[in-house]
């Protein structure tokens, strides 16, 4: 056993379909039956499965083990390092919250006795005990604030952390002095409470980012892909995408995505380019034709000689454009930081004024400093620090329930500003997958036969048929001796007759996809496929207009293919656009003062998604699209896009209310502090009171998506 254990490797798989306790049991108990898998552990929150397997277990075999159990699994390549980095970040914050919470409770316990009248030696003892708890806590829990404040100050800027750090440090130092000189007031409780509330806000922010990132990782499909490579002696082995080299020959089955650029070296098929260029009609690929990484082989198995892999592929060009486009977005300043720009100098001026004022009035430096510290503590942006993250995490939770993943808080802020929507056609307004258009012509027997044959095949058209027919409630007929011939189709025996589902006998006149059901060689039905509009596309466009967002189409497809969609939705469209053209279109709108929401799915939309003021991609999008977008919506309906905009606007309204509450609280509290009425007791009540109000207000967002 120990010998075997030494040879195990750990691998992670994203399994988006884990939905219930049954799935957990099925996966964990089913996977270990496989000889190669020693242990499996499901992480339901992140929709991942962590397995320990033997060294000789190849990726396709492991994916096969998942599909035997009825789950689709995607290997997660080198991603975990980055993901775990984020998770450990919020874990460190959680530890700091725990320490601050523990310290706060114990210091409060001691403070309450001081407030209720402890005096003399007892008070001093309690103050010393508080100091003993507070000093290490400030040093441990305050680190992230001090570090960020120091970074800002060193670059001559200021942020929310600067007043926090100064307030915390001065208040701690003064309290220590008070304790040493047997003074009546020490602010240790206020300092630690401040840290606790602020850390809560920061932790919420971090958890939100992690959760969305977990969801996105689970959706990434193409990460860690590879190809079956055929050697000189006709043996085939699985090679990871990163290890592919020019000259290798890949065997690409129907329904597989290409892992590298190349030329067709054997066979002929049709290639779906929609993710790369936005074209909805598949393109013929014959011997010697160039084909690109990321495109989908939809008809027959082909051999492809690799010409470029990894960073040299056509995709890499788009990735470079995306990197440049994303730089513009990083200049966006979050609302809390914008507020801090005005808030921080105001707080410092107030505290300084209080100190100077009392000095002039002849109160002596000790008394004046005490009042200045009271002003600093009372104005410290406690509620302000919670105002934004509390609202945003509630909103993100609400959106997750309607199927929208929001990547971070700034995405919600930007989404609330948009007034233009530029929408890609293929895969965004449309479903981006073939849907059978003429199933109504078929009678019940033909439909049942179709389903019986189609469900035996993994071919994209068969899968489309299976999905549509199952959804229509068709029960398949019993057929025997099912056999699939790659490049031709499926055949079987039905009541002694030979039934086939495959390529139509005569090629269809247009480039539309079609498949034919034949009984004893006589054609029974030719099923045509087309890329259909999303079911609620028209409603969504109307709702967008109602929300004062002007929509238009930005498509890489031919004008002839875009026109029917544009006409039926009443939209203006720009067609035949390259990724650069899309970028330019967005830049023009931005220059005209509009905030553009980009909605798209393809690789070719990647740069535009990165450049838009905000961006949304469907869950079926290319990995590049999903990585570049701020939000991802799941499912076939387009309406979540509008819901996301609505919730984002509601969130922004709540955030502004929270700011107003925090400022209103300051208007009342600051004069009191100025006059010297703010004892540690008053500060504690004011701080916790305002924080609770802000959090309560944020919770109103729970039902905002309805």
């Amino acid at each position, binding site marked *: 056993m120990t010998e075997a254990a030494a040879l195990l490797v750990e691998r992670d798989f994203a399994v988006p379909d884990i939905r219930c*306790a049954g799935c*957990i*049991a099925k996966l964990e108990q089913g996977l270990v039956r496989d000889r190669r898998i020693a242990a499996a552990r499901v992480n*339901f*929150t992140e929709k991942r499965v962590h397995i320990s397997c033997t060294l000789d277990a190849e990726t396709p075999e492991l994916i096969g083990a998942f599909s035997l159990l009825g789950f689709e699994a995607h290997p997660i390549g080198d991603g975990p390092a980055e993901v775990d980095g984020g998770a450990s970040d919020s874990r460190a914050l959680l530890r700091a919250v*725990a320490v601050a919470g*523990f310290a706060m*409770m114990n210091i409060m316990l*001691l403070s309450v006795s001081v407030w209720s009248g402890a005096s003399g030696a007892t008070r001093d003892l309690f103050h010393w005990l508080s100091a003993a*708890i507070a000093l290490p806590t400030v040093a441990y829990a305050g680190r992230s604030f001090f570090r960020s404040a120091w970074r800002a100050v060193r670059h001559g800027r200021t942020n929310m952390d600067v007043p926090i750090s100064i307030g915390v440090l001065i208040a701690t130092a003064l309290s220590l002095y008070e304790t040493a000189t047997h003074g009546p007031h020490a602010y240790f409780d206020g300092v630690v409470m401040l840290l606790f509330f602020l850390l809560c806000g920061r932790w919420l922010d971090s958890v939100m980012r992690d959760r969305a990132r977990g969801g996105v990782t689970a959706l990434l499909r193409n990460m860690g892909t590879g190809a079956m490579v055929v050697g000189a002696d006709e043996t085939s082995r699985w090679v990871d995408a990163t290890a592919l080299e020019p000259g290798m020959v890949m065997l690409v089955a129907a329904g597989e995505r290409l892992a590298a650029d190349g030329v067709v070296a054997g066979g002929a098929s049709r290639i779906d380019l929609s993710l790369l260029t936005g074209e909805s009609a598949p393109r013929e690929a014959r011997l010697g034709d160039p084909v690109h990484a990321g495109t989908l082989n939809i008809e027959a198995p082909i051999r492809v000689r690799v010409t470029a892999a990894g960073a040299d592929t056509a995709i890499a060009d788009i990735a470079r454009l995306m990197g440049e486009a994303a730089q513009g977005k990083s200049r966006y300043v979050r609302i809390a930081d914008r507020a801090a720009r005005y808030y921080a100098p105001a707080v410092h001026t107030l505290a300084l004024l209080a100190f100077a004022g009392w000095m002039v009035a002849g109160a002596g430096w000790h008394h004046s400093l005490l009042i200045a510290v009271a002003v600093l503590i009372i104005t410290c942006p406690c509620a302000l620090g919670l105002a934004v993250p509390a609202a945003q995490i509630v909103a993100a939770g609400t959106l997750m329930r309607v199927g929208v993943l929001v990547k971070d808080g700034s995405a919600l802020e930007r989404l609330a500003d948009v007034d233009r929507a530029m929408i890609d056609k293929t895969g965004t307004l449309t479903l981006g997958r073939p849907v059978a258009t003429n199933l109504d012509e078929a009678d019940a027997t033909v439909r049942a036969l179709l389903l019986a044959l189609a469900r035996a095949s993994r071919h994209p058209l068969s899968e489309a048929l299976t999905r549509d027919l199952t959804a229509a409630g068709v029960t398949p007929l019993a057929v025997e001796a099912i056999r699939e011939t790659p490049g031709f189709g499926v055949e079987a025996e039905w009541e002694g007759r030979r039934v086939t589902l495959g390529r139509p006998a005569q090629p269809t006149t247009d480039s539309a996809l079609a498949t034919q059901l034949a009984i004893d060689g006589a054609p029974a039905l030719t099923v045509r496929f087309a890329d259909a509009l999303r079911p609620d596309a028209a409603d969504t466009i109307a709702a967008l207009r109602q929300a004062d967002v002007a929509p238009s189409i930005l498509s890489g497809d031919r004008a002839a293919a875009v026109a029917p969609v544009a006409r039926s939705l009443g939209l203006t469209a720009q067609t035949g656009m390259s990724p650069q053209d899309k970028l330019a279109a967005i830049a023009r709108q931005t220059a005209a003062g509009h905030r553009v929401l980009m909605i798209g799915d393809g690789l070719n939309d990647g740069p535009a998604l990165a450049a838009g003021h905000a961006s949304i991609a469907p869950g079926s999008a290319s990995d590049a699209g999903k990585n570049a977008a701020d939000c991802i919506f799941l499912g076939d309906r387009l309406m979540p896009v509008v819901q996301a905009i609505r919730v984002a606007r509601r969130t922004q309204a709540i955030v502004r209310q929270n700011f107003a509450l925090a400022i209103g609280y300051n208007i009342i509290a600051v004069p009191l502090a100025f006059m010297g009425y703010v004892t540690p007791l008053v500060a504690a009540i004011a701080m916790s009171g305002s924080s609770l109000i802000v959090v309560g207000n944020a919770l109103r967002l729970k039902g905002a998506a309805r």
Partner: protein
Amino acid sequence: MNGLLVLIPVALGLGLIGLAAFFWSLRGGQFDDLDGAALRIFVEDEEEDAR
């Protein structure tokens, strides 16, 4: 006054135990999969002889 000498260390000690327990559970991965933990109660353990 004498009571304080006993009670304060007790109060602090209990708090510290809580804090230590929290850190221990955090390190043990009990907070890694909160939604899954809620569902695992429904998972029936596999029979011993199935192995």
